[in-house]
């Protein structure tokens, strides 16, 4: 009986599950993180020191925020290639606001609005203009970094401010404020994705857009929505970035783009859309941060870091082929 086997799904013994490749694919990020932590922990005791864990969590914060935004887009079978340039532009907007004496709250608001605007443009072009996600966001990738250069006139703005300094250095226990902000974002994103109508419609739009439209869901509005979420989170990431480096630079930040997609893939979110979660990409972001941190501690040349990230991501993508 078919329904009997369906119910049986959840109760299969764990030994059978371990032999199933799908199990490893679903938990790739968590398993990868555990293995990495164990290996680096053995090779270099400093890796697991309180101080290093604290700095890793802070370092992971920006990537977590971006990966969460990217997750929403990827769940609709899209991709936001402009996410890092949007962050750059938002950081420059913050810097210019700060330079012109707007103060931190207003500058931060301006950064988030700027990010949201880029997201809105992406969403409208993709949903209403019916242009492929890839092309539109490739265009805004270039446009946003160009706008950042123009706005900043190519020069960084130093941001010296008590609040911003505390944001990047203080916290509660070993949890820095920027990590706490990222964690709150992740929890909110989980609630939106799994406990609101919008979240359900995101998966419907990514899975079977035709069916979603037949049931009266405006897939266009959902598309615009996810790109705006991605943009706003890029704006938030910009604030954390400025706090972290103490300046607003019109630099490219390409690593953030690649790593945000990488974290999403590591987290088991299908690039074909329709399925996804928040915990996976968050763990994926932690994994990538731990990888870079561990290699640095071991004295491996910086040149090897992009190579190692690339290998890990392609391996993870291979594993997702076996996802259930």
């Amino acid at each position: 009986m078919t329904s009997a086997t369906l119910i049986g799904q959840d109760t299969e013994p764990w030994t059978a599950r371990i032999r199933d490749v799908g199990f490893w694919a679903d938990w790739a990020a968590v398993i990868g993180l555990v293995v990495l932590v164990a290996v680096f922990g053995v090779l270099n005791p400093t890796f697991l020191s309180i101080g290093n864990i604290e700095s890793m969590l802070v370092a992971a914060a920006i990537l977590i925020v971006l990966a969460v935004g990217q997750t929403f887009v990827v769940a609709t079978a899209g991709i936001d290639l402009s996410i890092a340039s949007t962050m750059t532009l938002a950081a420059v907007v913050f810097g210019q606001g700060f330079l012109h004496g707007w103060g931190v709250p207003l500058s931060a608001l301006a950064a988030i609005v700027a990010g949201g605007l880029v997201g809105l443009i992406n969403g409208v072009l993709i949903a209403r203009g019916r242009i492929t996600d890839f092309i539109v966001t490739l265009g805004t990738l270039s446009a946003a970094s160009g706008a950042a250069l123009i706005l900043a006139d190519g020069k960084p703005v130093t941001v010296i401010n008590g609040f911003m300094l505390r944001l990047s250095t203080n916290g509660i226990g070993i949890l820095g404020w920027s990590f706490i902000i990222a964690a709150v974002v992740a929890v909110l994103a989980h609630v939106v994705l799994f406990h609101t109508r919008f979240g359900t419609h995101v998966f419907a739009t990514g899975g079977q857009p035709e069916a979603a439209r037949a049931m009266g869901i405006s897939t266009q509005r959902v598309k615009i929505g996810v790109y705006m979420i991605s943009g706003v989170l890029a704006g938030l990431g910009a604030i954390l970035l400025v706090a972290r480096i103490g300046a607003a630079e019109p630099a490219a930040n390409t690593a953030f783009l690649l790593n945000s997609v990488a974290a999403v893939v590591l987290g088991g979110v299908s690039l074909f859309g329709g399925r996804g979660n928040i915990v996976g990409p968050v763990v994926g972001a932690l994994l990538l941060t731990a990888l870079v941190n561990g290699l640095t501690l071991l004295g491996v040349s910086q040149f090897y870091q992009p190579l190692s990230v690339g290998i890990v991501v392609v391996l993870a993508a291979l594993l997702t082929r076996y996802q259930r």
Partner: protein
Amino acid sequence: MTTPDGLDIQDTVLLDCEHVSLSFGSVRALVDVSIHARQGEITALVGDNGAGKSTLVRCIAGIHRSDDGYIVFDGEKINFHSPEDARRAGIETVHQNLALIEDLTVWQNLFLNRELVRRLGPIALLDRRAMQQKAREMVATLAVNVPAVKSRVRRLSGGQRQAVAICRAAGFSSQLVIMDEPTAALGVQETARVEELIIKLRDEGHAVLLISHNFAQVMRLSNQIWIMRAGQCVGGRRTAETTGEEIVALITGAQAQ
């Protein structure tokens, strides 16, 4: 059981299409089509490919708007601007592709775009438990072979998917359920189960408008048959008073009215 023909038709007619015409550019997809469907009956719509069955159904379901003529549903002339309007009025469609989301669960599909929420001030959170509970009830009233409501649609067989789509159409106090080739992709056993489900729908008082290429099925299930050819309705018969041969003759044009 059924109302004798010619008596009190107005009481039981739920859907009445009168002189409906629709052109796409120079293509006349529907020409002066008049049909009706009654409450508690299965009304079949037959015809060759391209005869206009699906176009007519799309007019009723709010996807197209007719150029000419009018459609009366439940005593009122309809003026739908979207499928949503039709759904709100009580017209549900089981699409040929079923319109199910594979990676969502059965209950999520049943409540797709009609999710139940709990309001906490400005925030509306899904009431998952209530939806699962109601989904179980919806499935239980019709259930023939619908699996656990928490299973994903991806894991279901063709017949189970069809059952989920029919359950969704039957729920939410719909009066008319339109089905486009509901058993085209199914095996013999699954077809029999879905047919059981369609009969159950009728017995619960729904009007069913059935598009089918399967004559045996049409003869088995329907109470009334409308025959379409080249955008026109070329005849209507009470199923009890006709034969498969006559229907085929009307479809092919071998027999006029």
